[in-house]
């Protein structure tokens, strides 16, 4: 109760940061978090098998995956979003299928675009890490008589994922920042809230600086989370004293 009073006093006389607009920003944080978290999660699940197959000896497995990552990493996410958001509408009869209730919302087309995008980047990150596995580790595994599968599961992947951690942390931050374009297809993420507040009050500094501050906090939270993970998981790589 006291908190509410304090809050109201803080906002008294402030035309822009009313409880209503703050509510928009808060909903924006929720939308952004959902969008980024879900796309990263699904993207990660997709990227693990793709990155293994990307290193396959068979051309017909390797090349399509390479083409996929090349296209999604070589074009702007905004274009991918437009293609999916506007594209699905013109698939004949899509409005009558069971998918439409999902695709009709801007959230799911955006989620699909973001997921495909991050999966492409993550695949390449993991692929690079797998390729960089020390020969000695592989030879040791062979010497133990491990099968290819077991070696992949027990030796290569665990060490590759650890090595990929810093690069993956960057990808997470990149995704958070890239998600700002969701507002272009009517989603009210953090940037969407800021654009709404700006358009209503013509107050660019308040509207966008506040959004920038929120993103900055989220970025630092991710940064510290990954630092913590690196300390835990990469402890064996640190010089011992």
């Amino acid at each position, binding site marked *: 109760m006291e908190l509410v009073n304090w809050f109201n006093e803080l906002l008294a006389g402030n035309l822009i940061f009313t409880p209503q607009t703050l509510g928009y920003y808060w909903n924006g944080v929720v939308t952004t978090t959902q969008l980024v978290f879900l796309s990263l999660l699904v993207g990660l699940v997709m990227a693990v098998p793709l990155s293994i197959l990307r290193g396959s000896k068979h051309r017909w497995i390797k090349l399509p995956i390479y083409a996929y990552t090349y296209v999604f990493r070589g074009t702007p996410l905004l274009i991918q979003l437009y293609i999916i958001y506007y594209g699905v509408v013109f698939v004949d009869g899509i409005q009558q299928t069971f998918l439409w209730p999902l695709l009709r919302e801007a959230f799911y087309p955006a989620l699909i675009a973001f997921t495909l995008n991050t999966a492409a980047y993550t695949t390449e990150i993991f692929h690079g890490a797998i390729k960089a596995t020390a020969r000695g580790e592989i030879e040791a595994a062979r010497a133990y008589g491990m099968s290819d599968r077991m070696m992949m599961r027990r030796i290569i992947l665990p060490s590759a994922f650890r090595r990929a951690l810093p690069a993956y942390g960057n990808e997470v931050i990149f995704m958070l920042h890239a998600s700002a374009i969701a507002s272009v297809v009517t989603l009210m993420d953090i940037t969407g809230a800021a654009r709404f507040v700006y358009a*209503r009050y013509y107050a660019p500094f308040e509207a966008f600086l506040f959004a920038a501050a929120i993103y900055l906090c989220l970025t630092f939270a991710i940064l510290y989370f990954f630092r913590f993970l690196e300390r835990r998981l990469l402890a064996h790589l640190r010089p011992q004293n």
Partner: protein
Amino acid sequence: MKKLLTVSILGLALAAGTTQARDYDHVRFGVDVPYEPMEYRTPEGELTGFDIELGNALCAEMGVTCEWIEQEWDGIVPGLMARNYDAIMSSMTINDERRQSLLFSDPYITMPGAWFAPAGSDLEEANEETLAGLSIGVQRGTTYDSYATDAFGSTANVNRYSTADDMMLDMEAQRLDIVFLEFAVGQSTLLDSDAGDFKVVGEMVTEPAEIFGEGFGIAFRQRDTALAERFNEALATLKEDGTYDEIYERYFGEE
């Protein structure tokens, strides 16, 4: 070499430092097109509409030449601030929120807002109950956005668009259940066009006054009070000599 680059890049940003006389003999209007029948292009590409004709008549009355510069609604106020044009005449509602950063002429017309839905829709009334959970389309930053947001923002999904075109596309694609916009505009772009079958839902909306204000006005930069005054005088003259009524009737019929 490096210095040269820096200078040329700075020069980019600091382009066009021309001195401009304060007593305008040439007025440039910013306008968001298409917004039929207020401002739109004929199939031949000619810019016309109620705002355009009235604006031209006002300029003629004041003895100045005028020019129309197209700008999307999102950026229409920054465009004025950036002096890409000297005034906005684009169906802009006068209200206190906007008065914080703009100077308005006297209102020159009042227009209600209205709800439009696909003809097959079950909606008969637009109120909190019937709209609950539906997707409402509005143009971002318009009076209609403010109204829909304040009245239904907590119970329905308000989808905001940069342009009316974007919104119509999502309406045709069935992403939106209903849109809220100026009645006359909905009438020409939805009812009288071949975009599909649409209908008006419920009553026209003109309240509350703090959102719908006193009507549409011409917006100026705050320090251009002299220019606004000249427009007010010209508007009064046109209303007296019948020119205003003539233009009005051409677009909206008898009053």
